[in-house]
C-alpha cells in the first residue's frame, strides 16, 4: 500500500544537515520509500534504472581512461594499447567502457520500446518522452565521438563518412558552404577533429546527466505508467519504491551484470570491428565502412535513398518523428495490451527495425533474395518504418476496437490472483 512518508531523520546530525539542505529527503522521495510507484510494474520497467546504471558506469570508466588516453593523431591508438597492456586493470576498464556503450544502447532501446508498447509517451507524459528522445540523441552523438577516439581505421573512416553527411546541406547560403570543414576544423579529418571530439565526448555525458535529472523529475510529476496503462488512483494501486522496486531493480541489475560481464571477460571484441585494431590511415579506405551496430538501422535508411540530401533528412527524421508520437497516436488507451491490432503492428515494427539494422551492415548491392539487393529491401523496410508512424499509428489507434480495461490496478491484481 502506498505510503505518504516524508524523510524524518532521527539522528541529530542528519537532521541538522537536512534542515539546511534537504537533499537526503529529495533522494528519499524520488528513489526511496517516499516515492510511490504502481504495484504492477513488470520487468520491462527495470530498464530505466539499468540505463542510469550504465550512464554512471560509462562516466566512471571514462574518467579513468582519460587519465591515460592521449588525444593526438600519432599517439591515440598507442595510448589505448598502453591502457590495455600496461595500466593496472586498464584492460578491464577499457573493455567495460567499450562494451558499456553497447550495453547502454541495448538497455535504452528496450526502454524506448517499452515506452512504445505501454504508451508511455501519451498524456500527461509528453515532456518526459521528449526528454527521453533528447537523451537518446545525446547518446548517439556521444557514442559516435567516443568511437572515433581510439583512432583506428573504423574510427577514422566512420568519422569521415558521418561528418561528410553534413555536406548535403551545402546549398544553405552562408553556412552550408564550409560546414564540413567547420566540423573537421580543417580540410580533412585530423588533429583538430580528434581534439574536439575528445572535448565533446567528455562534455556531453555531463549534459546527459542534466537531462536525465530532468527526465526523472518529469517522471515524478505523473509517476510511472504501468502495464495496464490506467492511472494509479486508489490507495492500493501504488506501493513505495523502496523496498519493492529497489529489490526488483537489484535483481534485474544482477542478471544484467552477468550478461555484461560475459561480453567484457569472454568476448570483449564481439561488438567491435576488427579494423579498429589497425591504426587510422587516411590513405587506405577499408573495404566496408560500417558504423557501430546501434546506428545500423539509421545507416540503412540513409543509404536506401538515392538523393543524399533526402537521405540525410530521412535519417534525422526517423528519430525526430518520435517527438510527434503523442499526437500521432490518438487512442485513449495507453497500453497495447488492450489494443490487439496496435500490438500486432508494433511487433512488426520491432522486427522491421532489427531487419533495417541487418541491412545497414550489408553492402548496398549484396543480393539477398532472387534479384533483390540490400537497397531494395531497405526501401521496403524504411517505408514500413515511416508508414508505422505516419499511417498505421494515426489510423489504427483511432479506429481499432479495444479490449475492456480493468477498473483499477488493485482490482486487476485481485482478478489475476483469483485466476491463479
Amino acid at each position, binding site marked *: 500500500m502506498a505510503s505518504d512518508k516524508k524523510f524524518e531523520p532521527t539522528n541529530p546530525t542528519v537532521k541538522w544537515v537536512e534542515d539546511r539542505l534537504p537533499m537526503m529527503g529529495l533522494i528519499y522521495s524520488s528513489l526511496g520509500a517516499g516515492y510511490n510507484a504502481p504495484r504492477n510494474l513488470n520487468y520491462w520497467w527495470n530498464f530505466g534504472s539499468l540505463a542510469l546504471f550504465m550512464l554512471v558506469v560509462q562516466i566512471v570508466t571514462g574518467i579513468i581512461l582519460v587519465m591515460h588516453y592521449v588525444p593526438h593523431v600519432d599517439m591515440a591508438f598507442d595510448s589505448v594499447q598502453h591502457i590495455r597492456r600496461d595500466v593496472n586493470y586498464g584492460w578491464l576498464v577499457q*573493455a567495460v567502457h567499450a562494451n558499456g556503450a553497447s550495453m547502454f544502447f541495448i538497455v535504452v532501446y528496450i526502454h524506448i520500446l517499452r515506452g512504445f508498447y505501454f504508451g508511455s509517451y501519451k498524456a500527461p507524459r509528453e515532456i518526459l518522452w521528449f526528454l527521453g528522445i533528447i537523451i537518446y540523441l545525446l547518446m548517439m552523438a556521444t557514442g559516435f565521438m567516443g568511437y572515433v577516439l581510439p583512432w583506428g581505421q573504423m574510427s577514422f573512416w566512420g568519422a569521415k563518412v558521418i561528418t561528410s553527411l553534413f555536406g548535403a546541406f551545402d546549398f544553405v547560403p552562408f553556412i552550408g558552404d564550409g560546414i564540413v570543414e567547420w566540423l573537421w576544423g580543417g580540410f580533412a579529418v585530423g588533429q583538430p577533429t580528434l581534439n574536439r571530439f575528445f572535448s565533446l565526448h567528455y562534455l556531453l555525458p555531463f549534459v546527459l546527466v542534466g537531462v536525465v535529472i530532468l527526465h526523472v523529475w518529469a517522471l515524478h510529476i505523473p509517476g510511472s505508467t504501468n502495464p495496464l496503462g490506467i492511472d494509479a488512483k486508489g*490507495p492500493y494501486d501504488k506501493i513505495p519504491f523502496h523496498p519493492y522496486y529497489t529489490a526488483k531493480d537489484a535483481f534485474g541489475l544482477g542478471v544484467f551484470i552477468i550478461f555484461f560481464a560475459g561480453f567484457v571477460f569472454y568476448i570483449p571484441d564481439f561488438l567491435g570491428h576488427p579494423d579498429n*585494431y589497425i591504426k587510422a590511415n587516411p590513405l587506405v579506405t577499408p573495404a*566496408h565502412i560500417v558504423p557501430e551496430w546501434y546506428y545500423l538501422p539509421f545507416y540503412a535508411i540513409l543509404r536506401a535513398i538515392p538523393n543524399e540530401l533526402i537521405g540525410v533528412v530521412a535519417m534525422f527524421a526517423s528519430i525526430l518523428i518520435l517527438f510527434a508520437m503523442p499526437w500521432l497516436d490518438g487512442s485513449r488507451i495507453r497500453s497495447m*495490451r488492450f489494443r490487439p491490432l496496435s500490438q500486432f503492428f508494433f511487433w512488426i515494427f520491432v522486427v522491421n527495425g532489427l531487419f533495417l539494422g541487418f541491412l545497414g551492415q550489408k553492402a548496398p548491392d549484396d543480393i539477398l533474395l532472387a534479384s533483390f539487393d540490400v537497397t531494395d529491401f531497405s526501401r521496403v523496410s524504411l517505408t514500413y518504418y515511416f508508414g508505422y508512424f505516419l499511417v498505421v499509428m494515426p489510423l489504427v489507434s483511432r479506429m481499432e476496437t479495444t479490449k475492456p480495461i480493468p477498473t483499477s490496478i488493485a482490482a486487476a*491484481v485481485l482478478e489475476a490472483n483469483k485466476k491463479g
Partner: protein
Amino acid sequence: MMKNINVKGLMATVVGATMLVAASNANAADSTAMHPERNEYTSAGIFGKWDIPSLQRGFQVYQEVCAACHSMDLVAFRTLSDIGYNEDEIKAIAIEYEYETIDGDGEETFRPGIPADYFPAPFANEAAARSANNGALPPDFSTLVKAREHLGFFSSTYGEDYIVALMTGYEEDVPASAPEGFELPEGSYYNHYFEGNAIAMAPPLFDEMVEYADGTPATMHQMAYDVANFMAWASDPTMQERKQMGLKVMLFMFFFVILLYFTNKRVWAKVKKGEDIDPSKI
C-alpha cells in the same frame, strides 16, 4: 496475459537475433579468400590459458624469421615474462638488440637493449619498408591477430587461425580453383586465404627452417601454429588474466543473483498476491 506478451517479445527477439546472425556472416558473398580452418588452442574457451612452450617456440620463429620484415612496436621485452621467461633471460634477450643513442659527448652511438625497451623495427620508416619489400608494407605484429578476427554468431574467423592458414596456404602455381580471370601480378604469390589471393609476401616458412630449442620437429605447420600463438599473445597479452577474473566474477554474480532473487521474492511475497488489498476500498 503477461505471459502472452513475453512470449511474443521473445519471439520477436529470436527472429531479430536470427537476422543479425545472418548479418554476421556477411563477408562471405564477395570474398575470394577461403575460410580458415579452426585449430585447437589452449587459449580458447572460458578457461583458456597460454600454451607457454608453443609461445616460446613462436617467439623463436618471430625472432629468426618474421622480425626481418615485421615490426612489433607495442611489445616490450619486459612483457616476455608473460610467456615464461625470467628476469635474467629477458635481460639476455634484450641485450642482443642495439639501439641508436647519443652519448655524453653528443656523438651518435649504440647501446644494448634493456628489458624496458620495445622490439626494434626492422626498417627506419614506411618508405624504407616498402622499398625493401617490392612496394608492400609488412604489417606490424602488435595487434595483427585482433585485426584479422571476425567474430559472428555462427561463423567466426579467429585471428590465430587466419595466421596459420595464411602461412600454409601458398600455391606455387595459380590453381584451377582461382577466381575467374585471375592473373598473378609480378612479384606476388598465390595464397588461398589472402583477400584477392595475390600476396606480396613470399612463402615465409619452410620445414626445418628453425631448430627449435625444445627439440620439437619444426614442420611448416608447427611453426605457423606456434607463431600464431605468439602473435595472439602479442595482440591480447591480458587474455589469461581476463578469463581468470571473469570466472571469479561469474561465480560470484551467479551466487549473488540467486540471493537477490530470493530477497526480491520475499520482499514481494504479500504484495504480489494482493493480500494487503482491502477489496471494499478499491
